């Protein structure tokens, strides 16, 4: 549970600030369009047919138009400023209509116990993949607000060495390892990003991870699970701040009704 409460407070503040600075301004146009349509068609009956006249069904555009590749700056910061952790993280997302298919990959290693009488090391890689739905479907300047569901998996190993001080058997050294651990979990994501210059994007992803399972555990339980957090927590919250670039090969039409 370490730091989760702090994360929640920070994330809540970020959501409020980001929503004010990005979504509010950009959605005002869409809101105006909605009010104009509603007032201009106020005489239309509120029947299924009448609603179709106000909001005619749009044509789906499943052909991808862009690929966004991002680097996790928080992971990079951890590697620079934390002497005992190394992290890298990348994320890619491709659009399909108002949906995205997002893939994340990263590596993590950690060392613990320095100054506490033991040495623990964990290292491995992780990935997550899943769909996201973009709620800012009428915004065309590259800003996106998505909610998603992902499957996450980590392949990692860990080692522990320390000295046991036993009442009966005396002092003896212990070495334990898990060479082939596999962790699986599900995560719910919220991603908010905007293009700040040309195709350069910045944004963050908040993840709530649940249903963590770990296979191939030996005598020792792991402590760190790459991509997830602490093994002792069955759920986890993580914030990623991404800097990315959008590769766009065609312009996408506004995802609302045809005029």
């Amino acid at each position, binding site marked *: 549970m370490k730091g989760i*409460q702090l994360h929640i*407070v920070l994330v809540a503040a970020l959501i409020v600030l980001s929503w004010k600075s990005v979504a509010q301004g950009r959605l005002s146009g869409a809101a105006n369009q909605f009010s104009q349509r509603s007032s201009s068609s106020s005489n239309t009956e509120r029947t299924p047919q009448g609603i179709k006249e106000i909001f005619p069904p749009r044509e789906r555009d499943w052909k991808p138009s862009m690929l966004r590749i991002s680097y996790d700056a928080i992971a990079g910061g951890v590697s620079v400023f934390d002497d005992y952790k190394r992290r890298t993280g990348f994320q890619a997302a491709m659009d399909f209509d108002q949906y995205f298919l997002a893939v994340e990959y990263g590596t993590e290693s950690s060392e613990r116990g320095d100054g506490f009488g033991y040495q623990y090391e964990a290292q491995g890689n992780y990935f997550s993949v899943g769909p996201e739905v973009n709620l800012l479907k009428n915004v065309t300047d590259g800003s996106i607000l998505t909610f998603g569901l992902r499957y996450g998996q980590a392949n990692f190993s860990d080692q522990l060495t320390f000295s046991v001080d036993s009442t*009966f058997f005396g002092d*003896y050294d*212990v070495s*334990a390892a898990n060479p082939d651990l596999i962790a699986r979990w599900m995560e719910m994501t919220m991603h908010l990003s905007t293009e700040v210059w040309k195709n350069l994007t910045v944004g963050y992803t908040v993840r709530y991870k649940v249903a963590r399972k770990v296979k191939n555990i030996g*005598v*020792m*339980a792991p402590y760190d699970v790459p991509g997830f957090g602490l093994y002792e927590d069955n759920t986890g919250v993580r914030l990623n701040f991404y800097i990315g670039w959008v590769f766009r090969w065609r312009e996408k039409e506004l995802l609302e009704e045809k005029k």
Partner: protein
Amino acid sequence: MRNGFILILGLWSVVSCQEIKDCELETSRDYAIVGFYESDSVEKEVKTVAFAKVYAPDYDDYYYISSTSDTTLTDDTISATGLYLYSEAETIDYLFETDSINYSLTIEYTPHLRIYYDECDPVYSYKIDTAYSNEFDSVAIIYRPLGEFQTTYNLEVYF
């Protein structure tokens, strides 16, 4: 005013929800508690017995109780004893020596190692899988985990 209240409430929530990390607060132990009982009694009757030596032959440098090795021991009668488990093995044999007969007791167990807090030492916990003896009349497993706060014996030995 309202913003200040929300800020204080948030800080209070963060501070109050922090876990207490007490490295001395162990919930498991590394020895099984064995109680001795009369085998031929109708009621469950505790048996008080004096063993000359209780030890694990594979680790014979160490003994739990020995009236022959410990001359300061004034009362070597016991009705229960603790038997330590070795973390680097999954079975251990204990020998209970008397003047007339030696009793053996084998305990098979599963050790589990875990770091609960990264600021504390790693902790072993144990769970008894099985226990048996060729000399005691019967051995019953009462409570498999070796817990610090358990209220029953782990094993009951009848002879």
